């Protein structure tokens, strides 16, 4: 099980250049809207035709511009979960699912497989309903049942939770996680949510304006995103320009501070990122005087926006976030940050 994807396509002023390989597992395609995530999926399914490149799924070439191969969508065996699930509104749940097994000629086997997937996806009792009479979560399960019964070589999920409310989202995310583990095939999940990406994906590819910014193991990328876009998409709130001034030290012009990262700083470092929860009043490492500007209360945590004493007043406020249970009696006058928690960003 593997896939090789290389896509080059010019769309007006936008250019899509994506190239990656995946041996096995769940890949998250992360990126802001308009970064080319959905276009990439559409090229894999054959909805869009790349200008150049090749797409190989489990050893089968479905597209190769040099060899002039361009299989029809029907022949690619790619399962695609659309953002709005794309259930056929005129058909019942059972009819929708049976569209996934229409090529199976044996009627008994067809009925067996439909019954089987309806049980597995907990859809019994809903067979005769129309899609419009189902909740968002049920619609998603029908769409997944219809795709899985078709036995696709690879599964593409286009923002699977964007149409659901947040309560349902968390519940379905765990369900989907179990399902994907059972599916045992390659999956690409398009998302702009770092929580979804972190929970579902073994690997992450970050797209920025049509090109691949980072590609790697999910945990490693969250630990060390290495680029500004990566830091932003993994939820880092404080990203600021920085220059190397010593083996382990960097100077942050906006804050007028020198920070010690405690590790070797590469020559090409352009910025640093500090996650909002990494500041602490009790750390003496990189501790500097601050002034609190704003405090925002959230259900389970506080967000405090502050500036360093010597900071240029025109520059952005710094975010500090902590759980309500950790709220100090009085606001500390100094905040520290461990060197290892300073993300070094090279692009």
């Amino acid at each position, binding site marked *: 099980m593997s896939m090789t994807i290389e896509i080059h396509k010019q769309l007006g002023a936008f250019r899509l250049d994506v190239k990656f390989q995946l041996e096995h597992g769940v890949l998250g395609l992360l990126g802001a809207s308009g970064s080319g995530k959905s276009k990439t999926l559409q090229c894999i*399914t054959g909805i869009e035709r790349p200008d150049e490149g090749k797409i190989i799924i489990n050893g089968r070439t479905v597209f190769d511009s040099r060899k002039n191969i361009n299989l029809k969508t029907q022949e690619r065996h790619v399962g695609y979960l659309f953002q709005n699930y794309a259930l056929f509104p005129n058909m019942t749940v059972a009819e929708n699912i049976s569209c996934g097994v229409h090529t199976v000629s044996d009627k008994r086997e067809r009925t067996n497989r439909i019954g089987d997937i309806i049980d597995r996806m907990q859809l019994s009792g809903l067979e005769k309903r129309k899609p419009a009479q189902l909740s968002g979560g049920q619609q998603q399960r029908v769409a997944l049942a219809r795709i899985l019964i078709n036995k696709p070589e690879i599964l593409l999920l286009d923002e699977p939770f964007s149409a659901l409310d947040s309560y349902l989202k968390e519940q379905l995310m765990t369900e989907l996680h179990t399902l994907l583990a059972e599916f045992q095939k390659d999956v690409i999940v398009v998302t702009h949510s770092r929580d979804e990406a972190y929970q579902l994906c073994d690997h992450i590819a970050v797209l920025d304006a049509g090109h691949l910014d980072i590609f790697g193991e999910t945990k490693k990328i969250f630990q060390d995103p290495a680029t500004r876009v990566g830091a932003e998409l993994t939820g880092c709130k404080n990203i600021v320009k920085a220059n190397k001034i010593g083996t382990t030290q960097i100077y942050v012009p906006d804050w007028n501070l020198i920070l010690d990262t405690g590790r070797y700083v590469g020559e090409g470092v352009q910025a640093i990122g500090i996650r909002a929860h990494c500041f602490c009043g009790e750390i003496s490492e990189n501790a500097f005087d601050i002034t609190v500007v704003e405090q925002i209360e959230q259900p389970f945590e506080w967000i405090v926006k502050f500036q360093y004493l010597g900071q240029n007043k025109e520059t952005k406020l710094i975010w500090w976030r902590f759980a309500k249970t950790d709220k100090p009696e009085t606001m500390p006058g100094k905040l520290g940050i461990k060197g290892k928690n300073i993300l070094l960003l090279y692009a």
Partner: protein
Amino acid sequence: MDWYPLWNSLRIAAISCVIVFFSGIGMAYYVAKLPRIWKGILDVVLTLPLVLPPTVCGWLLLLVFGLKHPVGIFLQSIGVQFVMTWYGGIIASAVVAFPLMYRTARGAFESFDETLAWSGRTLGLSGTYIFWHIRMPYCKQGIIAGTVLAFARALGEYGATSMLIGYIPKNTATISTTVYQLWRTNDEYSAFVWVLVNIAISAVVLLTVNMLEKRGQGRRACS
């Protein structure tokens, strides 16, 4: 009372409605997929019979099928004559009713959610299956409305029909040409009967359209 015009009108309207149903849907599907420039040009050509006076359509039809013109001469040589025959009325009605079917069907096709077709393709469904089982049912309301309108228009066709097939009692006479003929010959009573027949048919057609629209709204309210 001679009921031939009713029967003749109904068969002309029914046959031309079948022709218009398939050709209208076919053209609508084809045009909806074209690039914008071609869409614009073809749209004008295909809608023209709706805005032209029916007599102009009739004149143009005579220009093609007239017995002194090449196409008419050729058709006559193989034994087909659209001038002054009842089945010539099918041509006249179909041409005039076509834009109604075409435009309503095109509107319906353009509102179709293409992701449905794509999800069908990813499941391996053939283009034909998608067209008949997904696209057509989705656009059902618009297509039925277009069909009913086309049928009503074909049934009431007068101008192009009278130019192409004239009025021959028990041969090319339709309801509309009969009403004109009876009024011209001062047979007020018979003319009045035919007017009542015409009103009755039109009322049934309009009722059908309204019922279909209501059903459509009810369904949309559910979703």
